[in-house]
């Protein structure tokens, strides 16, 4: 019964996966159809040839898929792709067939997808059911699997002949046939071994309960044998660099052969010894290594061929570009799709694949300044956080960029730098959406850039801009902070209990400086478990000698009774008076209002934003959902949330506190009601022209 249950589970998992891959393929197909239409007129024969040879392969791996673990299906997916790539590169070597290559690159995968998607699920389901039934009747299983594997091998044999029919130069053909013989030999060896092993494994599954030591040893031996075979095959394959296609065939075969092994082993992993697991792992590693090598080689060849085609420069260049791009989006799309099922519905619009993609898209020889790239990574990985810090870091990076900027000939300084700036910013904003402070700083920088005279000397302009940025940091952040610090200090009276939430450099400065000024007060730092910012704040305050308490946000209403003032930081002050703060700020303000405690928000005017937002749904940032998981808790329910389709984790970054909950906002200009934000913005526009 247990074995049956496991079978069913595995079937379910595999089934889900095949469904996903099918829909992905449908998408891909739609995409590729467009491009393939363009090259329709070109040799369709090739397409057909490829199609025939790919499709059975696809079915082949799908036949096995219901009992495969997920990672193997993934890898086999990759292999199909790899295969198409290799086909290309092979054909690429002969320049005559270059146009056809593109077609074949598009078509096989899409065609395979087409044939797979419709039948996949049904077939997979049938197979799994069959297997489940057969698991009950022990005797029949062995025969079934044997016949299946035999079928597979015969199919493979047919497949092998197909590629050789492809129009490749004859010399190559001969070469290939030679290697084909070798491969066939190896294959027969392998298939024997695998059939042997798999049949053993199947019997093991069914008799899992009365597994003897002998059985274990036998299976162990089988596995080692298979691993050895794989090794030998890969060694031989390595030797033959020219016959990429053929090798690819073998690769697929090895994987396919291995998969039943591993898949079945997983099911019986309970009754396994350590040694067995070890051997299994080793076999897996071998396969992965081989796949990697093949991929690398394929890449090399592809690069070579690309260079070649570029040298020739024929009208097919466009298609070439398409070809280069095509494999990338495929991979990305798959990832995105698999994640999207785990996203919270209300916040779908906030999910953007920021960080990794931007970095991946970055060309190696891009002319972005290293400081900008560094900042981008720092922003994405949340090394640089906090509104002020992000603004200063941005200006610092820009300063370096301006310093090292070399003006191309016949370009106006402002225009040239603007182009550079735009590229840098689009990269940075993709790494992490800009904060209000950053937007304002950039506005100011751009304003200064436009103020430069047309025939300005490069040196002078650079100096001016750098001075301007220094001035911005000094006036808008440093001096503003000082003014706010003094204003708030006057509001803190002796014996006060000041509550603050999260970490803000400004609040920290205010509290530190008022402590140094001799005001007797006690700070209550409120934090949450997920983010470490409040603890960082606490660390800094204690280092400054402020007497502090720390409470979790869940204890907020308890401590609020004894609080005299609530002092909050802000990421931005919106034009309708709402405060965009770290998530949890709203809660602190609400509890303060409930206890009639005045809420002060400290915010420099450089963080005032001309956006309007009434709730945190419209704009927000999705944080790392993994942060919600309690790492110290071994049995945390959230630990394997990705495998549970009914469980979503949502980690938001900001929330919006309405103006009605805030008693006053302290700026460097004055202490103002929140609703005065438009006045401040208007004032700043007239003052700084931004």
């Amino acid at each position, binding site marked *: 019964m247990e074995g049956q249950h496991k079978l069913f589970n595995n079937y379910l998992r595999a089934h889900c996966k095949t469904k996903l891959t099918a829909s992905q393929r449908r998408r891909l197909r739609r995409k590729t159809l467009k491009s393939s239409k363009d090259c329709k007129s070109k040799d369709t024969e090739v397409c057909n040839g490829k199609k025939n040879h790919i499709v059975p392969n696809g079915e082949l791996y799908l036949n096995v898929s219901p009992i495969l673990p997920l990672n193997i299906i993934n890898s086999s997916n990759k292999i199909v792709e790899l295969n198409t790539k290799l086909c290309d590169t092979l054909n690429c070597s002969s320049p005559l067939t270059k146009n056809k290559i593109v077609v074949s690159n598009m078509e096989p995968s899409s065609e395979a997808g087409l044939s797979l998607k419709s039948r996949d699920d049904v077939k997979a389901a049938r197979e799994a059911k069959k297997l489940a039934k057969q698991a009950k009747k022990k005797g029949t299983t062995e025969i079934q699997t044997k016949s299946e594997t035999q079928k597979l091998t015969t199919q493979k044999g047919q497949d092998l002949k197909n590629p050789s029919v492809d129009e490749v130069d004859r010399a190559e053909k001969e070469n290939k046939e030679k290697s084909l013989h070798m491969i066939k030999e190896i294959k027969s060896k392998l298939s024997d071994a695998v059939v042997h092993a798999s049949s053993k494994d199947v019997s093991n599954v069914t008799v899992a309960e009365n597994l003897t030591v002998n059985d274990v040893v036998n299976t162990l031996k089988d596995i080692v044998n298979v691993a050895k075979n794989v090794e030998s095959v890969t060694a031989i394959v390595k030797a033959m660099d020219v016959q990429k296609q053929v090798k690819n065939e073998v690769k697929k075969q090895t994987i396919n052969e291995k998969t039943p092994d591993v898949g079945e082993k997983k099911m019986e992993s309970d009754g396994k010894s350590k040694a067995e697991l070890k051997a299994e792992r080793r076999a897996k590693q071998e396969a992965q290594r081989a796949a990697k090598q093949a991929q690398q080689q394929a890449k090399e060849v592809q690069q070579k061929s690309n260079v070649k085609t570029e040298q020739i420069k024929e009208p097919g260049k466009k298609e070439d570009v398409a070809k280069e791009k095509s494999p990338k989006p495929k991979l990305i799309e798959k990832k995105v799709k698999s994640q999207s099922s785990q996203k919270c519905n209300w916040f779908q619009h906030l999910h953007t694949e920021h960080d990794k993609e931007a970095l991946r898209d970055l060309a190696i020889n891009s002319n972005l300044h290293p400081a900008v790239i560094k900042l981008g990574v720092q922003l994405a990985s949340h090394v640089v956080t906090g509104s002020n810090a992000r603004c200063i870091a941005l200006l610092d990076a820009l300063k370096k960029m301006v310093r090292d900027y070399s003006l191309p000939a016949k370009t106006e300084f402002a225009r040239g730098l603007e182009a550079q700036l735009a590229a840098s910013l689009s990269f940075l904003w993709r790494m992490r959406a800009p904060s209000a402070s950053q937007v304002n700083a950039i506005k100011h920088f751009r304003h200064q850039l436009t103020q430069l005279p047309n025939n300005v000397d490069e040196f002078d302009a650079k100096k001016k801009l750098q001075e301007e940025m220094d001035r911005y940091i000094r006036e808008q952040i440093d001096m503003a902070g000082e003014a706010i610090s003094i204003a708030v200090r006057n509001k803190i009276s002796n014996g006060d209990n000041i509550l603050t939430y999260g970490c803000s450099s400004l609040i920290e400065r205010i509290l530190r400086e008022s402590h140094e000024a001799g005001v007797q007060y006690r700070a209550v730092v409120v934090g949450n478990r997920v983010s470490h910012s409040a603890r960082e704040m606490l660390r800094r305050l204690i280092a400054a000698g402020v007497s502090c308490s720390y409470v979790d946000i869940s204890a907020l209403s308890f401590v609020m009774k004894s609080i005299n*003032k609530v002092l909050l930081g802000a990421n931005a002050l919106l034009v309708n008076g709402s405060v965009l703060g770290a998530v949890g700020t709203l809660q602190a303000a609400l509890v303060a209002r409930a206890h009639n405690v005045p809420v002060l928000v400290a915010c420099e005017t450089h963080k005032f934003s001309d956006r309007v937002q009434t709730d945190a749904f419209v704009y927000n940032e999705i944080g790392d959902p993994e942060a919600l998981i309690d790492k110290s808790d071994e049995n945390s329910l959230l630990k394997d949330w990705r495998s549970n389709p009914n469980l979503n984790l949502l980690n938001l970054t900001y929330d919006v506190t309405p103006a009605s909950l805030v008693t006053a906002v302290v700026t460097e200009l004055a202490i103002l009601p929140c609703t005065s934000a438009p006045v401040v913005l208007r004032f700043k526009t007239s003052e700084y022209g931004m």
Partner: protein
Amino acid sequence: MKKEEVQEIFLKILREEEDVSVGVAAIKTLLTVIENYKVATVRELDLNLQLAVDAMRHCDQPVTAISSGCELFMRFITFAKLDVKSFEECEQIMLQRGRIFLDTLLEARGKVAKQSLPFISDGCKILTHSRSRVVLAAMLEAVKANKRFQVFVTYSSPDNSGKRMHKELVAAGIEATLILDSAVGYIMEQVDIVMIGAEGITESGGIINKIGTYCLAMSASELKRPVYVLTESFKFSRIYPLNQQDIPIEFKYLSSVIASGGFGEATPFSGLYTPCIHYSTLYRFGHFDTFRR
């Protein structure tokens, strides 16, 4: 220039002109300071004025109006272009502007009274607190316009300034009733509108007034009676109290009380800060424009 001299001038103005408010008296004092004490530089003048303001703050008069009035005056007279050749010319310009400012202030009360006329309807009952010159002017204006209405005036302890208000209203032929401070909640359901003055308006939109105003406003808000605050624009001051405790001490107590150090036990004389309880029920009149929130 001596501190005592300034205080003398200031108190003299307050004694001689019954009808003038503390803020206006302070501004008049500053004008005489500019006229009488000749100085050679703008810096000296500025120091002089600041000394004068400081002196007036210690005259045992409510500080709220003095500080806001003086602040506005200083800003207004220095707002002019002062890039003239000699200091005499500059002084003349300042004096001229000062007089313009004073004139507008003196007109202010009449303007507020006129503007508040539509809010006093025929046959309505009005509750007012303590004594306010603007409220009195508005009611006299309404009587002149042949409106019949009834007024309830609180005693407003500790100085019982409501008694004086009551006397003045009766003298003008208005039907007025004195009530206890503690009867505000009882009477509230009978009245139609609440009309009060203010010593100062804070940046947050609250008002600072004689003690008891906060209670009055809260009970009015609870019973949903409209509260009208009548005030001249020079009373708008640049403070932002977060709560009652956050109001500067000199605004709450007379300077003599502060000097004796006994304000811990003493009742604050001025009625503290009234935060706008419900913006919709709080109407306020400046003489330049009508603030409506």
